[in-house]
C-alpha cells in the first residue's frame, strides 16, 4: 500500500500503485472449501458430472425455496438463461422486446440471438430503473415481451410493471441478475412476472464460476425451459420441443453455487459492513453521492454506485483513468448505454435523453470478497486526494495527452 502525498505519486504519472492487486467491482465470493468439497462428493461418487445430475437438482430445489418460487431451472450462464426464457415467453408473431438502454452491455445482443428487436425504454432518474411509466410508451402492436431489468442498487417498481404487463397483456420477464437476495415492496425476487432470470457468474451474488437460473411459478414454462437447455430431449431419443441447445449447468459449478448459498448470511453481513464504511467515509467528500440501499427491504448491499455531481471537479473518464491506474478498478456505470452502440441487427432507434444524461454520471466502486474496510478507507482517501488536487491532475493529464 502506497499512500498518495503528491500528484507525482499517482500511478498514472509513474508513481507506485496504491494497491498491488487490483480491487475490482466483481463480487467473487469465496465459500468454505469444505462445503464445496462436500457437494462435489455427491456427483463424484455417482460419476454424474453433468446432464441434470444430483447437485444441479439439489441446487434447483434450494434456489426455488430461496426465492419462494415453485420452479427453478439452472443454466450454463445468465446470458443463455435469459435468451431461452425470452425465446419461450415472447409472443409469437411479434417482433419487439422492451428493455432499458441503461443496462447490461450484452442485453441487446440477447434479443438479436432470438431474432427480436430491442426497443429501448427510458429509466427513472432517481432509481436508474425502468418503470411502468417509462415502458408504457414503448408498447405497440409489435411488442412480444417486456424485460424488466432491476438496477444494480435496489429494485425497480415490481408492482407497477406487473400491472402494466397485465393490462397490456404482454409477457413479462424480470432480469434479476443483480437482485438475487433482494426484496422489493412486493416481496422477495423470484416469483414475479412470468419468470425471473438470475446469474451465477463469479462476479454476482452467488458464485457458481459461470451459470444462471430462471425461477417461475408456471409449470409449463419450467418444463419447456428444462427441455430446451438440453437440446429439447424428453427421454433418451425424443426431441420434444424446437429451439433447443446446450445450456446445461455442470455439476462442479452447481457445487460451487450451493456452497455460496450456504454462506449468504455471512456474505450479506460482510457486504453491509463494506457499504456502511463507504457511506460513512464518502459523506465527507463533496461532489460524490452514494446511491443508497433502501434498507426497509432485504438487500445484499453488494454493489457500490456513486454519482459524480456537478461540483465534482473532474470528468468521469479522467477520474476513472486515475483510479484504474492505481488498481482501483472502478467502472463507468453502464456506459455507453445500449441505444448508443452500433447495431447491425434489427432494433428500434431510440431517443433517450435521460438515459444519455445518466450514462455520463455514475460509476461503480470496488466491492466484494477482496475489498476490506481498510481498502475502502484507502479508496475514499484516493477520491479525496483526486478532489483536492483536481486542477493539477487535470493539467498533467492534458499535458500527457498532448502529442
Amino acid at each position, binding site marked *: 500500500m502506497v499512500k498518495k502525498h503528491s500528484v507525482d505519486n499517482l500511478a498514472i504519472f509513474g508513481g507506485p500503485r496504491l494497491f498491488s492487486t487490483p480491487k475490482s467491482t466483481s463480487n467473487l465470493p469465496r465459500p468454505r472449501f469444505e462445503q464445496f468439497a462436500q457437494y462435489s462428493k455427491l456427483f463424484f461418487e455417482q*460419476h454424474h458430472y453433468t446432464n441434470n445430475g444430483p447437485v444441479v437438482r439439489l441446487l434447483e430445489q434450494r434456489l426455488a425455496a430461496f426465492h419462494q418460487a415453485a420452479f427453478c431451472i439452472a443454466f450454463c450462464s445468465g446470458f443463455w438463461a435469459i435468451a431461452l426464457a425470452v425465446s419461450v415467453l415472447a409472443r409469437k408473431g411479434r417482433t419487439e422486446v422492451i428493455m432499458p438502454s441503461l443496462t447490461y452491455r450484452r442485453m441487446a445482443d440477447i434479443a438479436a440471438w432470438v431474432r427480436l428487436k430491442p426497443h429501448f425504454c427510458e429509466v427513472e432518474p432517481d432509481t436508474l430503473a425502468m418503470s411502468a411509466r417509462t415502458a408504457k410508451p414503448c408498447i405497440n402492436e409489435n411488442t412480444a415481451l417486456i424485460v424488466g431489468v432491476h438496477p444494480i442498487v435496489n429494485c425497480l417498481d415490481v408492482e407497477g410493471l406487473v400491472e402494466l404487463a397485465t393490462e397490456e397483456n404482454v409477457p413479462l420477464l424480470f432480469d434479476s441478475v443483480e437482485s438475487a437476495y433482494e426484496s422489493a415492496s412486493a416481496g422477495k425476487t423470484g416469483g414475479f412476472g412470468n419468470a425471473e432470470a438470475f446469474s451465477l457468474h463469479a462476479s454476482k451474488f452467488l458464485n457458481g464460476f459461470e451459470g444462471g437460473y430462471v425461477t417461475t411459478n408456471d409449470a409449463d414454462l419450467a418444463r419447456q425451459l428444462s427441455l430446451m437447455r438440453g437440446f429439447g430431449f424428453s427421454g433418451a431419443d425424443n426431441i420434444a420441443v424446437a429451439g433447443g441447445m446446450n445450456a446445461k449447468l455442470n455439476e462442479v459449478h452447481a457445487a*460451487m453455487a450451493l456452497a455460496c448459498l450456504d454462506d449468504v448470511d455471512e456474505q450479506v453481513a460482510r457486504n453491509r459492513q463494506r457499504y456502511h464504511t463507504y457511506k460513512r467515509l464518502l459523506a465527507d467528500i463533496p461532489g460524490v453521492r452514494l446511491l443508497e440501499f433502501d434498507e426497509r427491504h432485504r438487500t445484499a448491499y453488494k454493489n457500490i454506485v456513486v454519482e459524480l455531481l456537478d461540483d465534482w471537479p473532474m470528468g468521469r473518464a479522467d477520474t476513472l483513468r486515475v483510479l484504474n491506474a492505481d488498481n482501483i478498478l472502478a467502472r463507468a456505470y453502464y456506459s455507453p448505454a445500449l441505444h448508443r452502440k452500433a447495431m447491425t441487427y434489427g432494433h428500434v432507434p431510440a431517443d433517450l435523453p435521460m438515459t444519455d444524461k445518466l450514462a455520463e454520471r455514475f460509476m461503480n466502486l470496488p466491492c466484494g470478497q477482496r475489498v476490506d474496510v481498510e481498502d475502502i478507507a484507502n479508496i475514499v482517501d484516493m477520491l479525496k486526494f483526486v478532489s483536492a488536487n483536481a486542477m493539477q491532475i487535470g493539467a498533467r493529464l492534458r499535458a500527457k495527452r498532448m502529442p
Partner: protein
Amino acid sequence: MSSVAFALFGGKPAFDKPLPVGQLYFPSWERYEAAFRGIFGRGWYTNQGPLTQQLEQRLQQFLGVKHAICVSNATIGLMMLPDAMGLTGKVILPSFTFAAAAQALSWAGLTPIFCDVDLNTHQIDVERIGTLIDEDVSAIMGVNLWGGACDLAELGALADSNGLQLYFDSAHAFGCAVGGVRLGGFGRAEVFSFHATKVLSATEGGCICTNDDELAARLRNIRSSYGAGEPVTVVKTANGRMSEAQAAVALMSLDDYPDNQTNNKTLHDLYAAQLDAVPGLRLVKPSGVSFSNYQYVVCRVDEREYGLSRDMLIELLKAENVIARRYFYPGVHRCIPYVEELPTYQNRLTSTDELSATCIQFPIGALVSPEAVERVCSILRRAHLASSEIRSRREK
C-alpha cells in the same frame, strides 16, 4: 440355451449398477481437490483465467493448431461460428449426427440442408453433396463421427470448387489423426466437445480450433470481452466462456489422454474380438483415420442374421443394466422442427434411415472393465443363440 436366465424374464441382472455408454473419465478425488484448492487460493474463477489460458496453449500444442478457443460447450461453439465465418442462407450437413449440429445452425438463423451418409463409414457421403448445392448454400459442415473422420480431401476439394466454406463438428474426434496429422486444423475451423461423455472431459466444455487469425479474433470477441485480445467488430456477442473449473478438469483429462485412449483401444479391441463370430452384429471401425480415440463402440444389428431387432436387443440389455443406446435415432431430419420439412428428405436419406434403425452403441470408458466387456459380449452371444425363444416370449 434357455431364455429364462435373462433379466428381461426375471433372471438376475448381469450388472448390479447401470453401465453407461459415455466415457466418464474423471481425475481422482485427490487431484480434483488439489486443483480446486488452487482455484480457491487464486480467487480467479472465470473470465479467461490462468487455467483456461494454459489449457488453450496446451490444446494448440497437442492438436498442432494456431488457435484453440475454449468455450462453454461445443454447441455454443457451433452457434458462434456462423456469425464469425459470415455464413448466410443454407449449410449442408449430415442428418446422421447429433441434433446440436443442426440446432446451432437454426440459432444462427441458417437453414440446415441434410445430406445422406455412407452406409459403411457412417460419414457424410461426399458424392451426394453436389446435388444439394444451390446459390443459397454458403458452407458445408462436415461431422467427424465415431472417432473417425470424413473424407477430408474430397470435402475440401468439393468446397473449394464450389466456393463454399468448410468447417467441422469434431465433437467425437478429439485426438484423432488423419495421415498422422491430428484433427483440429482442417477446413476453416473445427469444434471439439469436452462433455463428460467424451474422451477429453471438462464436465461440459469444448473448443473451437482454427489456423485463421482473423476468424480467431472474431470468435474471441464473440465469446466474451475477457481474453478477447484486440477488439474487432462482430455482429453480436454471446457468453461462450469456459470457467476455471472446467479448464481445471480438462487439463487433468488432457494429462490422462494417453492412458484413456489406450484403455479405450483395449476395450474396443476386446469388443471386436469377442463379437467377431457373432452373426448379425457388425462392429463399425473408426474410418478414415490413422489414429482414433476409440470413444465409441458402435455396431450394426442385422435383425435377420442376429435374430433380434436392435430395439429388442436394447430392451434386453437394459434389463441386464447395460444401458446400450440407439444412436443416432432418429436422424435429425426426423426430429422437431426439421421433420416438418420431411417430404423433402423422404427418399433422399435412405442410408441415414437405415443406420438409425440398426445402430447400437455399447458401453466403453472409465466405468467399463475388460471383464464387463466380456460379460456384455457373453449376453450378446447368448441372446443370439436364444433369439427365437426370446422373440416368442416377447410376442406373448
